[in-house]
């Protein structure tokens, strides 16, 4: 093998070397030709202007030949050995070999050269005649153009020694060729070991294949033998199974379904002969019932993979079209290698059995379907305290939340246990009382659902005597919860409507009254019997009729509305009502009427009117009061002016007289004039007090706040009152502790103290005592004026600070006074933020006590302070 390869590769190598050399040679020739041709063309072009036209018209004469010899002498020599000039018609007109002149050769080549193609060829020098050594030469033709002519006038042919030119070309190409050959040799030397290895591997492989091939042949031989014995067994088997009253078959696993062999009994079963059957591949799947095909396919797949034997049942369509139920018993046959190989089975006709089974199932299904479709639970039970169930349909689960199986034979619970405890006794009574006559009974009760809710049911049943003589109940239980709850809801609403004081009514779209409650009867005076079916328009006064129909239309459009309207009662009286109306719609949402709730607002209207009237009256009265107030202010201003002006004159002239301006005044005159002056002053005080009170009432009391030494003010008041006290021999005592200055109106506080002290003196009898005390606590200045007078009765104490109030004793004893002093005093104290109190035991004198805050007024801004009385 190796040797052969070596020889082959050596030959190939030699051929390649020869090829390269041949190519080199050939390339050298081609290159020589090209060079010679180029030389001829160059020469032709170089000599173009030295040729004459006549040089190409016929053989040249001797003189011209000499000229041309001379001209070409530069060219001839060296490699170029011969020159020829050709005329267009193929006559040699000149050559350096004179023997050739005049020769004629009308070859095609010349014409093509004249047409523009350059041409060269290898041959012998004297192939076309001529003298001298006849060595290998290369000739090249080139067209000649004279005098710038565009068309050639003839052809120039140059002969070159072939060997010289070729040797030159070879000299350059040979080293290349040799190098290539050497490179090839080196490559071969490098590749040879690898190639040898590859060749070795291929030889080993071939040997192995040969071995395997031998083994295969042996196996095939064994198989053939096995198959022969199998066929023998098969034949025996067939003979046996074809006697049995069933169809036996063999299928290959990749094509299940009686595909390899089927026994002749098939004809009896399906009407097909085995030949007919097997003639159509996949006949089994055509014949099998479409509803069974998928299932059987799956069973096959699972059975083949997992089982030794399995069986299935399915339907096959016989040739006649009849459907045959078969049982297919399948055994999986495994090959020697343990893999499942074949399925072998029997088909048994089970149509008759199947049909009876189906009929039973169908009847049962029909019964269950029937029971299931009943909208209630159907039962058969014993007549005992548990209501032991023999049968109870599934619908019970929806009613009580437990499956029916729980109740069968009281397995988990008794039916009695789901009956509402309050209804158990009644159910027993209702059922047993109907037993005697064998009458059907109907009763209603509640059941307890598992979720804790209560359902209302109706039970209808009858006692039946079964074949075994036992009496049982057959019946059905219906859920009426929704209906019952709806009923209860309606009853509740009806009760609400009936008990309402409001009138609740409804009417259809034509205004015909459809409901009328007690409230409506009372409100309008018509009974429900009178109104239902009548038009509600009898209630509407003529002048409101149009408005009324518009309102109903708007309610139907908008859904609801609230109005206040007037209606006429049965007795003809008019009442004002507030009515809320809403549209009544049916389940499609179309308005079918209106409902109305009305309240009698006659009283409310009347109250409103009364109130408005009263308000108006109050406004008028208020205006009048304001007017009066204004008049009073004017009056006060007038009084103050009109009283003061004359008093001014009285006092002024008194002063003039008393000053002696009108002459000497006698003692008696002076005494009398003193009385006049005192009374004028009294009058003036009264006017002052009245004006002061008027100011307080107008909210215009103002304080001129400054620092006030209350002890000093008290001392001045005491001194003012002293003449009167001395007159009545009253001890007037003043006790003051050091007092801080307080912020207040000095004049007003003086007025306050004057009032209190003069009052005390006035009301204290002859020889009594009046104590004035001024002191201070941390926050308050305290003034006390205590007298030993007749005191003030308890029932009058609360009134003493009211203006114009005079105690009964003051009146009895004709003590002068206006009843304004304490009212003014109180206003002054309040204006200073203080309090004034009275303590008095009847007949034991009285004590007025004033407290005025120090700090509050110290902190206050000095200046005018408006204080409301």
């Amino acid at each position, binding site marked *: 093998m190796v040797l052969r390869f070596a020889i082959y590769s050596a030959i190939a190598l030699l051929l390649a070397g020869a090829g390269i050399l041949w190519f080199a040679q050939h390339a050298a020739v081609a290159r020589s030709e090209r060079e010679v041709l180029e030389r001829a063309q160059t020469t032709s072009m170089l000599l173009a202007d030295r040729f004459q036209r006549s040089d190409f018209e016929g053989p040249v004469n001797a003189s011209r030949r000499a000229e041309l010899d001379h001209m070409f002498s530069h060219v001839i020599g060296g490699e170029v050995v011969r020159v020829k000039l050709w005329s267009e018609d193929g006559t040699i007109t000149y050559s350096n070999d004179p023997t050739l002149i005049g020769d004629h050769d009308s070859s095609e080549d010349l014409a093509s050269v004249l047409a523009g193609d350059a041409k060269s060829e290898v041959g012998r020098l004297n192939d076309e005649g001529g003298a001298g050594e006849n060595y290998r030469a290369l000739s090249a033709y080139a067209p000649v153009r004279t005098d710038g002519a565009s068309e050639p006038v003839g052809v120039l042919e140059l002969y070159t020694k072939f060997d010289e030119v070729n040797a030159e070309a070879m000299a350059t190409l040979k080293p290349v060729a040799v190098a290539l050959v050497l490179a090839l040799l080196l490559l071969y030397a490098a590749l040879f070991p690898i190639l040898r290895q590859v060749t070795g591997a291929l030889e080993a492989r071939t040997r192995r294949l040969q071995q395997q091939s031998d083994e295969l042949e042996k196996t095939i031989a064994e198989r053939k033998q096995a198959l022969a014995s199998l066929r023998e067994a098969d034949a025996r088997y067939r003979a046996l199974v074809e006697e049995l009253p069933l169809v036996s078959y063999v299928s290959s696993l990749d094509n299940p379904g009686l595909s390899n062999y089927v026994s002749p009994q098939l004809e009896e079963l399906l009407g097909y002969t085995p030949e007919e059957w097997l003639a159509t591949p996949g006949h089994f799947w055509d014949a099998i019932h479409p509803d069974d095909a998928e299932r059987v396919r799956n069973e096959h797949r699972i059975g083949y993979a997992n089982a030794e034997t399995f069986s299935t049942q399915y339907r096959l369509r016989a040739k006649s079209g009849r459907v045959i139920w078969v049982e297919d018993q399948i055994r999986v046959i495994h090959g020697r290698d343990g893999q499942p190989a074949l399925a072998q089975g029997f088909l048994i006709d089970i149509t008759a059995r199947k049909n009876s089974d189906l009929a039973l199932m169908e009847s049962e299904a029909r019964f269950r379907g029937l029971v299931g479709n009943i909208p209630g639970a159907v039962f058969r039970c014993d007549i005992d305290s548990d209501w032991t169930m023999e049968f109870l349909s599934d619908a019970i689960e929806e009613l009580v939340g437990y499956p029916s199986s729980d109740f069968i034979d009281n397995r988990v619970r008794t039916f009695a246990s789901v009956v509402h405890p309050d209804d158990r006794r009644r159910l027993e009574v209702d059922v047993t009382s109907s037993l005697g006559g064998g009458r059907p009974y109907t009763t209603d009760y509640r059941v307890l659902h598992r979720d804790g809710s209560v359902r209302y049911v109706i039970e209808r049943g009858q006692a039946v005597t079964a074949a075994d003589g036992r009496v049982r109940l057959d019946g059905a239980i219906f859920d009426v919860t929704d209906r019952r709850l709806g009923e209860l809801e309606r009853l509740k609403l009806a009760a609400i409507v009936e008990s309402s004081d409001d009138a609740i009514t409804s009417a259809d779209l034509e205004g015909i009254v459809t409901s009328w409650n007690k409230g409506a009867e009372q409100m309008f005076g018509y009974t429900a019997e009178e109104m239902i079916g009548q038009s509600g328009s009898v209630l509407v006064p003529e002048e409101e009729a149009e408005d009324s129909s518009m309102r109903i239309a708007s309610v139907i459009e908008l859904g609801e509305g609230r109005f206040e309207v007037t209606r006429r009662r049965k007795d003809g009286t008019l009442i004002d009502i507030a009515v809320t109306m809403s549209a009544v719609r049916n389940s499609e949402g179309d308005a079918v009427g209106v409902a109305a709730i009305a309240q009698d607002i006659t009283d409310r209207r009347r109250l409103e009117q009364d109130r408005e009237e009263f308000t108006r009256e109050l406004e008028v009265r208020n205006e009048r009061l304001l007017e009066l107030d204004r008049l009073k202010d004017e009056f006060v201003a007038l009084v103050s002016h009109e009283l*003061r002006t004359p008093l001014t004159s009285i006092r*002024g002239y008194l002063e003039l007289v008393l000053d002696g301006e009108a002459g000497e005044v006698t003692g008696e005159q002076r005494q009398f004039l003193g009385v006049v002056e005192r009374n004028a002053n009294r009058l003036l005080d009264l006017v002052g007090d009245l004006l002061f009170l008027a100011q307080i009432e107008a909210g215009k009391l103002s304080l001129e706040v400054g620092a006030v030494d209350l002890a000093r003010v008290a001392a001045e008041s005491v001194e003012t009152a002293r003449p009167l006290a001395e007159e009545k021999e009253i001890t007037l005592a003043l006790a003051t502790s050091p007092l801080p200055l307080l912020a207040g109106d000095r004049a007003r506080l003086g007025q306050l103290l004057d009032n209190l002290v003069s009052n005390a003196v006035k009301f204290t009898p002859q020889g009594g005592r009046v104590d004035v005390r001024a002191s201070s606590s941390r926050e308050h200045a305290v003034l006390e004026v205590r007298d030993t007078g007749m005191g003030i009765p308890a029932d009058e104490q609360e009134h003493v600070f009211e203006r114009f109030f005079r105690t009964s004793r003051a009146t009895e004893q004709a003590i002068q006074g206006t009843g304004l002093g304490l009212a003014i005093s109180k206003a002054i104290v309040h204006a200073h933020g203080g309090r004034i109190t009275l303590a008095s035991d009847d007949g034991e004198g009285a004590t007025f006590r004033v407290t005025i805050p120090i700090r509050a007024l110290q902190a206050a801004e000095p200046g005018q302070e408006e204080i409301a009385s």
Partner: protein
Amino acid sequence: MSERPLVLVADDDPDILSLVTLRLGLDGYEVIGAPDGERAVEEALERTPDLAIIDVTMPKLDGYEVAERLRQHEPTSAIPIILLTARVQDSDVARGIEAGADDYVKKPFSTADLRMRVQAALGR
């Protein structure tokens, strides 16, 4: 001033008018009496008194208006004015000051008090 000071007194109450005139006369003033506001303004413009004592509540022109007019005219624009009134509200006082009065004497007044105020107004 060697001559007796000239005082204009205006009051619609003749008793008051003569009382004030008498009193001021006794005290050594020369007094012009006017029974109403118009006469008071006329007299004042004619005689240019050193002091005017004007009652507030008068017919025709009240005391405030008289005071305003006197202030508007050059010869009388600077003379002291004392208003006499029975009104006691603070707003009345304010209005008087606004109208140009220098002092305010409430009725009833004592002649001694008036005398002091007159002296004060005349700067004595």
